[in-house]
């Protein structure tokens, strides 16, 4: 399918032209096309040729359009808009077009997120709220959503979601976390490091791992998961340092690392500019250690600020668009629309979520607004049983937690889990290579330039 990028309209038209509805499902499975894939064409098929021209269905985004996370927030907004456009091109949900509406969560936290969600419900009457991440609320917004009886899909990457939904599954029937919890970064890293050794790609100079965490709960959970599982995987924690963020002067932390050089430095703080400063200060006087970071390096700002100093850095993300046929087609279309500096991998979170919510809604015979809980329970039921292959890989839910299952951290089957992607920056001017997990790799691990041995 290389060459011309196919738009949602192309796919919808071809689907309807080439396949009768009864023949469709077999054909859709074999399509694998243009970043929209069979699942999107499935929506076109359910819509049965209907044009999106009825009364609009409002879908809300509570996103940080201003504040420190605005760079991501803008992409979340675009991702939802992009998804709605694609879905509308395929007939919306049973002929009703989607209309995205947004409320700003500013600096996030419960004090900003809950009012934003309340406004989406009261002022706009949204049928679903589909977000990227909002930090700091720790599920406090769930009751507001549950009271309205609508669907809420977020990417807060928060292990607290698991117990919250599991312990009250009836009330929180419509709340899904579209990505794996942050906990999986921790154990996943240890598996990945041992895998490098088993494949002969790297020989660890010692068993020490230095863990540097930020002060936010998110970073602390990941750091704790690495520390608590280290021994199980044959590692010893030589340093566990909590830094107060924002941070630009890493001298004291680096002094400790240099005094007792570890095989791996794992930095679980995630703000890209702070991480870039770490590398700028590490590289002039490095230790023979792999440097692993999470999430922050997936943002272009990390490479732009750190420049040559970030070459060789390993990082991972549990949620990003893949560099495969689906992902690349979506990435290219997104950049074509929003410009070369846009970040499709971030926008992919609401993009995929809106897509599978629309399919679930169509399969359930339509979505419901605030107060129409019975209809939304049907939508949630369809969604709960769905396995969706989108730009992020596979979305399949832990039940009853209603959170995405990570691969290979929690399942060995790539068709049943969202890939926990490990990437390495080989050249800061280029897109990082995906080095794990199989079968998604686009590059192989290379020894970082600061390790001379």
């Amino acid at each position, binding site marked *: 399918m290389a060459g011309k990028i196919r738009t949602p309209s192309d796919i919808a038209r071809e689907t309807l032209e080439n396949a009768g509805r009864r023949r469709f499902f077999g054909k859709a499975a074999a399509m694998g096309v243009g970043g929209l894939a069979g699942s999107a064409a499935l929506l076109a098929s359910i819509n049965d040729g209907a044009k999106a021209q009825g009364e609009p269905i409002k879908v809300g985004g509570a996103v940080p359009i*201003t*504040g*420190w*996370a*605005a*760079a991501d*927030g*803008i992409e979340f907004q675009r991702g939802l808009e992009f998804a709605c456009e694609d879905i509308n091109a395929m007939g919306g949900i049973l002929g009703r077009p989607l209309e995205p509406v947004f409320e700003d969560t500013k600096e996030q936290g419960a004090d900003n997120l809950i009012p934003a969600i309340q406004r989406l419900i009261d002022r706009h009457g949204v049928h679903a709220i589909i977000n990227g991440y909002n930090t700091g609320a720790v599920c406090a917004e769930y009751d507001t959503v549950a009271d309205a009886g609508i669907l809420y899909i977020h990417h807060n990457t928060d292990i607290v979601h698991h117990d919250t939904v599991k312990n009250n599954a009836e009330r929180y029937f419509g709340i899904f976390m579209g990505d794996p919890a942050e906990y999986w970064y921790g154990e996943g890293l240890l598996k990945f490091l041992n895998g490098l050794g088993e494949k002969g790609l790297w020989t660890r100079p010692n068993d020490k791992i230095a863990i540097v965490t930020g*002060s936010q709960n998110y970073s602390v959970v990941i750091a704790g998961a690495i520390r608590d599982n280290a021994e199980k995987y044959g590692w010893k924690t030589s340093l566990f*340092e*909590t*830094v*107060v963020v*924002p*941070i*630009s*002067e890493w*001298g*004291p*932390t*680096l*002094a*400790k690392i*240099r*005094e007792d050089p570890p095989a791996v430095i794992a930095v679980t703080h995630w703000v*890209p*500019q702070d991480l*870039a*400063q770490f590398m700028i*200060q590490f590289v*002039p*006087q490095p230790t023979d250690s792999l440097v692993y970071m999470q999430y922050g390096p997936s943002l272009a*700002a990390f490479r*732009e*600020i750190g420049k040559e100093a970030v070459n060789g850095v390993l990082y991972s993300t549990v949620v990003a668009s893949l560099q495969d046929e689906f992902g690349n087609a979506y990435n290219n279309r997104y950049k074509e629309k929003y410009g070369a*500096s846009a970040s499709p991998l971030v926008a992919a979170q609401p993009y995929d979520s809106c897509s599978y919510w629309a399919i679930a809604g169509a399969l359930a015979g339509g979505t419901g607004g605030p107060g129409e809980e019975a209809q939304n329970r049907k939508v949630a039921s369809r969604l709960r049983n769905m396995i969706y292959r989108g730009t992020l890989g596979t979305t399949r839910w832990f039940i009853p937690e209603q959170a995405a299952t990570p691969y290979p951290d929690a399942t060995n089957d790539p068709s049943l889990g969202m890939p926990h992607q490990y990437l390495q920056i080989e050249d800061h001017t280029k897109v990082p290579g995906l080095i794990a997990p199989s079968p998604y790799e686009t590059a192989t691990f290379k020894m970082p330039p600061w390790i001379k041995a």
Partner: protein
Amino acid sequence: MDTFTQIVLSGLTLGAMYALSAIGLSLVWGSLNMLNMAHGALLTLGGYASFAAITQMGLPLFAGLLGAMAVGLLVGLAIYAAVVRFMLTDPAFETNIIVASFGLAIILENVILKLFGAYPFTQPFALKSGLYIGAVHMPYQNLFIIVGSAALMMATAWVITNTRMGRAIRATAQNREGAELMGVSVNLVFAQVLAIGGMLAAVSGVMLSSITTLAPTMGYDPMLKAFIIVVIAGLGNTMGALYAAFILALFEVSVQYMLGVRFGFPALLLLVIIALIWRPDGVFMKPKAQRQ
């Protein structure tokens, strides 16, 4: 030895950052009794002005610094013309201006957000490379801001102490009505101080962002640190602020190394509390004589 060198160099770098943060605030607060909550936003504005001049307009590096100074000066004047002059005669000026300047900070931050977006950038006004002291690497840019922060502080102190304008500023700070009776134009003094304060904040913002990152919220943390430095040094004591910045930073970095990074700032605050109990008017201020 390398570890000791690393700690000292980190402390000096952090101290320079604290000193840079405090310069403009110290001048305005100390001279006019005006706690300018927009100081952090002025730092940010300076950083972005330099970025725009160099990256977007293609001007040479030092033109970026001059452009930032010009923008800071103009915005400082605008703050006087649009807000301060209308509030000066209010008996509750010192309280009201805190709220008003906080509003200004929000406006400035959102203007920056609209113009440049939230995406973090690197400051192009930065020297490349560095030197090794033992095995420890010291970027030239860090050396530049250590020297630059000290030079700016000393120049500001000299202007306040040795010039006619400085005398007028000090007179206004001591007794506004008295200064007016002596022929000092208080309005002119406020305009001058806010313009100079804006310019100093802008220069500081350029230097700070050169070793951190440009982002619309970059002024928050320096504003907090500047507040602490100015209070512990004593209002209006510019040289005291310079000493306080480096002493506190070296203390903080030492605690970070010995006890853990997370204990650095709390330990610094504890030290500040103890110091203020000992010298409530500021560590570097002469104790006021009190009639028994």
